């Protein structure tokens, strides 16, 4: 929050005051942290902020930029942020650790985590991975691949994968972990063509672990469920606006990345935004936006439990607070 923002807020307040004094008084001060840097993965929230959609829903929002130094779970627990986005698996883990957070909206319906291999290494089907080196990230990212390896009864050598895909590009591993909206595109933009790659999307193998969702402390929800609903709806509206106006959304994303001094390419952010739309609104229309389905929840929780990342599965009804009514989509 710089001086500029304060001035802008003041001007905005003045503007709104002239229109509706009552509404101005109703604005609730709220802070929000996405789980990572302000890339297109969070375009909807930043756009809703930029377009004044949160204000429209009575929220005076502050977005705390996420990143490696700002773990959202900490900020939520300590009350420094009212809302945060987390992966569903992370959310369950935190809840299982006894921190009373609730999911008020599951934004991504599909898992973007995938495995990718070069066709030149002879991998076309899951079976071809036998005897190969597979690059995997940290524990949370290993649940799906490990289940996949088990499902196909594969004998692979797991190599810890860093944040870069260079190990894969130099053939240090045969199979790499990738986020569809991020590393996969990095691979493409390192000169490999899609037809030279074999991809394995976990959601196609019955291992769909939905990722980003919106979380808050249970007490916050209990105190002001209306605020939670308003936040979710404003966020969804921001996303829908972004999908309809991708250029505007990308302008916002690039602006915020620049503010955080994070090098970024617009084509990469565009790819990410396009994939967000695919993940948030999958072709299967039966999945309502912002809803967490019990089967997805239990699949993820079981996975965590089997990998020893949680001891007990938290109760679904206490974990998820549906903030969408049935007629909303």
């Amino acid at each position, binding site marked *: 929050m710089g001086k500029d923002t304060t001035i802008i807020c003041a001007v905005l307040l003045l503007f709104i005051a002239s229109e509706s004094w009552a509404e101005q008084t109703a604005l609730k001060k709220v802070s929000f942290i996405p789980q990572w840097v302000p890339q297109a993965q969070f375009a909807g929230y930043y756009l809703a902020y930029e377009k004044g959609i949160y204000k429209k829903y009575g929220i005076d929002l502050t977005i705390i930029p996420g990143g490696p130094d700002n773990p959202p779970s900490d900020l939520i627990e300590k009350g420094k942020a009212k809302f945060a986005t987390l992966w569903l698996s992370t959310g369950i883990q935190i809840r299982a650790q006894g921190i009373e957070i609730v999911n008020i909206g599951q934004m991504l319906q599909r898992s973007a985590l995938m495995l990718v291999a070069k066709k030149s290494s002879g991998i076309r089907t899951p079976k071809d991975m036998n005897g190969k080196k597979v690059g995997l990230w940290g524990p949370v990212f290993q649940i799906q691949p490990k289940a996949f390896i088990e499902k196909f009864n594969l004998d692979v050598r797991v190599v810890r994968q860093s944040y870069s895909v260079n190990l894969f590009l130099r053939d240090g591993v045969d199979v790499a972990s990738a986020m569809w909206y991020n590393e996969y595109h990095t691979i493409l933009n390192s*000169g490999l063509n899609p037809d030279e790659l074999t991809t394995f999307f976990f959601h196609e193998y019955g291992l769909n672990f939905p990722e980003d969702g919106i979380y808050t402390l249970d007490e916050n929800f209990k105190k002001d469920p209306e605020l939670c609903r308003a936040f979710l709806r404003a966020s969804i509206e921001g996303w829908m606006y972004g999908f309809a106006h991708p250029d505007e959304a990308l302008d916002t994303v690039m602006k915020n990345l620049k503010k955080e001094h994070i090098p970024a*390419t617009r084509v990469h952010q565009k790819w990410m935004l396009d994939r967000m739309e695919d993940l948030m609104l999958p072709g299967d229309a039966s999945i309502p936006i912002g809803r967490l389905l019990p089967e997805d929840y239990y699949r993820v929780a079981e996975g965590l439990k089997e990998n020893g990342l949680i001891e007990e599965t938290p109760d679904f009804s206490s974990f998820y607070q549906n903030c969408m009514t049935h007629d909303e989509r």
Partner: protein
Amino acid sequence: MMKDKGIAFKLILSILSICTLVFAVVFGYNYLISRKIIIRNVEVNAKNLAKATVNRIDMVLRSVEKVPETLASYLENSSHTDHELIDMLSAVVKNDAEIYGATIAFEPYAFNKDSLYFAPYFCKRGGEIKFTYLGGESYKYFYMDWYQIPKELKHPVWSEPYYDVGGGEILMATYSVPFYRRVSGKRQVMGVVTADISLTWLQEIISSIRILETGYGFLISKNGTIVTHPFGQLIMNETMFSVAEARGDRRLREIGRKMINGKSGFVPIKSIVNNKNSWMVYAPLSTSGWSLGALFPQDELMTDITSLNRIVVLLGLAGFFFLLVVIIWIAGSITRPLRALARTTEDMAAGNLDIAVPPVKSRDEVGKLTDSFGYMRSSLKQHIKELTKTTAAKERIEGELKIAHDIQMGILPKVFPPFPHRPEFDIYATLMPAKEVGGDLYNFFFMDEDHLCFTVGDVSGKGVPASLFMAISMTLIKTKATKGLPPERVLNSVNQDLSLDNPSLMFVTLFLGILDIRTGEVSYCNGGHNPPFVIRANGDVEAVRTTGGMALGVNEDFPYQSNRMVLQTGETLFLYTDGVTEAMNKNQELFSEERLIEELAFLKDKPIQEMVSGVMEKIKVFSQGMSQSDDITMMILRLKD
């Protein structure tokens, strides 16, 4: 369209279009070939430039590579204390100007069973040699590319360019060499020896590449990441492929793929700096597999040829206009007198032959034509003058001949029937001269109450002389045939008079008969004339027996003799001149006596006037439009009941 245009227009159009075509072909060919030569030279130069630059970089990189390679093999064969290692590293970083930093990073617990990380690191940060131990919660080097990739690949590797946070703290690239130890008989990776190079000097080398005005060099890494480029915002941020994606340029992506796959080439490309069409040379670094590209802007390469071409085009245009002016001038000099001549000729055609032809200025074809027209005009004028004179003379002669014709026809009996009060016979005659006046004659008259003298003759020759001789003959016959004289006496007498003074040696054939209308007896004398035909009542046609006389006017003393015959009532005597039997058709056939006899037999029962017109009609049909060459005369005499 073209047909309606003038000579000048056609000349201009055809000459100028051919000139333009020739010029365009020559110009185009010249342009293409010179362009090709320039491009070929540029390609050679560009490849040399790329090769020289690549060699320069590779030489440095290769010298850098030697250091960790030597260290790695040294480490493999002997054990060292931490102090020894630190001293070695320190010496390397101090002594090698190209090396920014170096470390020997060990596998977890490999150097010391108590410490997870062991990686002493020297670097020249801020111009000073700094020492630090790498590794820690925020710098897990086992999972960093510079460590992990060579370890997994088990061979030395140049890293991608990276900003080493928590290490060198600059933009660098690292050459990492894994080293090994034998553990229970197996060769295992114990760690990685590295040498870092600052990318600043690399960027300096590349940015020192100056090509013409706006050409430039750039370097991409093995992943296509842009390492140096005139556009600073691309460096380390974009790859060649993200640039291609942003520009929707599939070709650029393909070129990028060739570059990172170690290919070299020379290709046309659009500069992303200024969008100029350029030639790009690219070649790989043999050490790191990165690729150097250098752009040569086409317009700048072609500056000389472009200015040359501009001058050539300007010269061409000047020549074009000069040619245009000259053609217009020449065409004008041809067509102007022609147009003047055409106007004069139109006036002449309208009859004005007094108009002067335009003055002749040149001795070319147009001058000659004008001369010819002038000559034609005066000839025409002269000719018309003469023609007018001749026509007047001819008209006068024709008028006189007409009068002569009328006179000649006037001396022939022309009223039929001539003797309406004498029912004993019918007589009819006709004469058709071939020219205005002719040499045929006929006549009939009563010598006394019962004797009808009739005669048909033919003067030799035609025209005026013949007609004059005919008139003389007619007059002589009329005067000599006096009452009671037999035919031979009449002919003797006429012959003597005609022969007497006949300098032009003309003669006349003559048949003269005297009919006693009471008895039908005819005494006759034939002076060399065609014997007449008698058409008997039964239809037989007979020639009258000849009397053996010759034409009159030839022999003064020729003794003519006469014969007699009797015409019965209903019998017809047909007299004619040779104009009848010698009428000719196109095939030079004569009408002949046979045809005449046939026709007479056919017409025997017709009234005599119709017989004559029937024969005449037959002759006309026979001659098929051929003009009449001789006078035609026919006379018919028929006794009635």
